[in-house]
């Protein structure tokens, strides 16, 4: 067994010694991340053979990936469902109600004019609305996950992904100010 396999045989929660859950203790994650990187980072092998450096690079990349996955809530939720055997693919959403909501929100955002004198207030209001939806959506995901209804949980995560993308667009708009 090679060292990648040793890591592959464990999931990220196991590698980072965290219980498999949608909420994690961020301080524990950070501490464990530093501990692991101190062991495998290529800097520890700068004078080693090229094989050793290559292995170190692969392991370190794996730890970095695990850290990112567990640290970012949306990625963590998706990962949890992947562990339950679900596969995320690009697809069209069949929930027409949600589609209408998406279109409405996009329209609202596009109507915010950066040259408007009240642009700050408008963005704040939009953000508040969006954050409420994200909180609500996160709650829906968590309850579905807890009842082990993973297919519903999957759909909730897909919706959450949309909200997160919208949030990035709002940030981009803020950058223009």
């Amino acid at each position, binding site marked *: *067994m*090679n*060292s990648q396999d*040793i*890591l592959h045989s*464990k999931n990220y929660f196991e*590698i980072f*010694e965290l219980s498999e859950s949608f909420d994690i203790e961020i301080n524990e994650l*950070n*501490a464990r991340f*530093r*501990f*692991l*990187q*101190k*062991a*495998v*980072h*290529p*800097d*520890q092998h*700068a*004078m*080693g*053979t*090229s*094989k*050793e450096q290559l*292995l*170190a*690079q*692969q*392991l*370190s*990349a*794996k730890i*970095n*990936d695990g*850290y*990112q996955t567990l640290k970012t809530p949306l990625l963590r939720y998706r990962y949890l469902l992947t562990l339950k055997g679900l596969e995320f693919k690009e697809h069209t959403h069949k929930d027409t109600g949600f589609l209408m909501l998406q279109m409405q929100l996009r329209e609202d955002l596009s109507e915010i004019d950066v040259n408007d004198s009240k642009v700050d207030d408008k963005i704040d209001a939009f953000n508040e609305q969006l954050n409420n939806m994200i909180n609500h959506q996160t709650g829906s995901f968590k309850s579905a996950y807890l009842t082990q209804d993973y297919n519903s949980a999957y759909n909730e995560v897909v919706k959450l992904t949309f909200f997160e993308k919208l949030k990035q667009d709002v940030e981009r708009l803020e*950058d223009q100010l």
Partner: protein
Amino acid sequence: MALLQIAEPGQSADPHQHKHAVGIDLGTTNSLVAVMRSATATALPDEQNRVSLPSVVRYLENGEVVVGYDAKQQAQLDPLNTLVSIKRCMGRGLKDVIDMPYEFEGSIDGKAEGIVEGMVKIKTVQGSKSPVEVSAQILKVLAKRAEESIGAKLDGVVITVPAYFDEAQRHATKDAARIAGLHVLRLIHEPTAAAIAYGLQSQHTGLIAVYDLGGGTFDVSILNLNDGVFEVLATGGDTALGGDDFDLAIVEFFKKKANISEKLTPSERRHLLTEACRVKEALGTEKKVLAHFSTTQGSWQGHIYLEEFNELILTLVQKTIRTIKRVVKDSGLQKSQIDQIVMVGGSTRTKLVRQKVSDFFEKDVLTNIDPDQVVALGAAKQADLLVGNISSDELLLLDVCPLSLGIETMGGLVEKVVERNTTIPVARAQEFTTFKDGQTAMSVHIVQGERDMVSDCRSLAKFELRGIPPMVAGAAKIKVTYQIDADGILTVSALESTSGVSSEITVKPSFGLDDDTVIQMLQDSQLFADADKDSRQLAETRVEAERVIEAISAALKKDGKALLNEEEFTQLNTTVNELKQVIYQGDEKTVRLKMDKLNQDSDEFAQRRMNAGVKAVLTGKSVNDI
């Protein structure tokens, strides 16, 4: 001439003996080299006790190459053969640097003539020179200075690069080191190096912003220091903004005062720049400075007041503040959370810069380590650690990739594969498919930048994946993998997996140099001027072989008994000794063969050591307990 140094067979260095490593700040305006001496980093001076080496290289008609102060003094006399700010050309194409006062290959009167691909080349009396070769000249001078000061050859160097340096620029820097005959332990970000210098001296834990305004580059980074680990939370900057621009702003002011409207000759322009630079530096301490100059188009003499100067550079300084704002936002922090602000680079001596940065953070800024030296000092510390002179438990550097890397998809859109500020090393894969029935090839276009359209991003490389077996559209599964190593250097591979037929290709950036070119430059380089081609190669192979012997001997001593059975242990030792026997007797081919054999034979051992390490950490032990 470190590489040609003779050592007796069997006298390979003891793995536990002190190694010699230095930190090099390869700057746009000035470069420095520093070394650890009795636990303190010290910048090394030249015979005249000057620590900084102007990053200026002059090529003379008689084949001589002058580097540093002497070259800088002659800049006005011989502007086309005296290359300054060469760092701006590293890994850059003609259209990026067309405004620089040199004659580039493929350009006439500062205008590109037709399409010129690849990294620029500058025409000099000694023929065309790549920025990589020019940088290698600077590195060689610093390495020589270090070796003379230490009294031994260098085992490795850490070279700093701006955090914003892209792919091609990092590659170019590593190639320059290779041509100078140096072993690069790691490229590290300049701001990170500065934080190492500060962090270790004062034992800080906390959030630090590093504002680095050098001669030609600007970076700002937010670092998290915690538990002996430096983590770059976010970074941003501009590879074409620095103190040189302050000089240019003053030159524009001069031109207005003297009613100069026509294009200046290169030497006149240089004359004005030199005066501008003097005025700028004097205004770091004075309230007004007397300036004077004369050109064929007009002359001027008069006072420049600090307020006037501040007005000239205000837009430039504000530009840097906007970048800080963005980087703070990227880091997910509020500016009030930043505990310390480290000022780096000679241009932070400018009063307005300190004031504006301090105003922004509403805190005093740190300037207690010489802003010109701090980067080299931090790099020296890191170099000492990487060669194993101090325990690596003390410090671990985690870095991020500064720009998003993506791939071109249908309609000229960019799909991001690695988001900016992702911690490196990183490996990310994305799957693609064919869109036509029977499609057998696919074009992979690698781009860098934050925008959605390919046309708004920087093109890094293009390659074609061929030999995809004919299938219906959408059936092929092409996995494109982006790997970034700890130096921030990208490798991209593409693999068609469904059919079991696999094609794979590794790319180098468009503005990089291919391996043959680097080897050619290595052979042309003065380091080997009096040796023939074979002995040059032999010398390079020997150095590499020595490194392999050292690495494996050290590993055998540490873990050999524990991880190998008796037979394997003896076998590997024998292979090491076989290489030792030929290293100073055999020809290049023999040494290479034995070295390749040793590398191969030790792969399994390397794998086991890594396994042991991984197993240990997964069960919560420190690697040192194995």
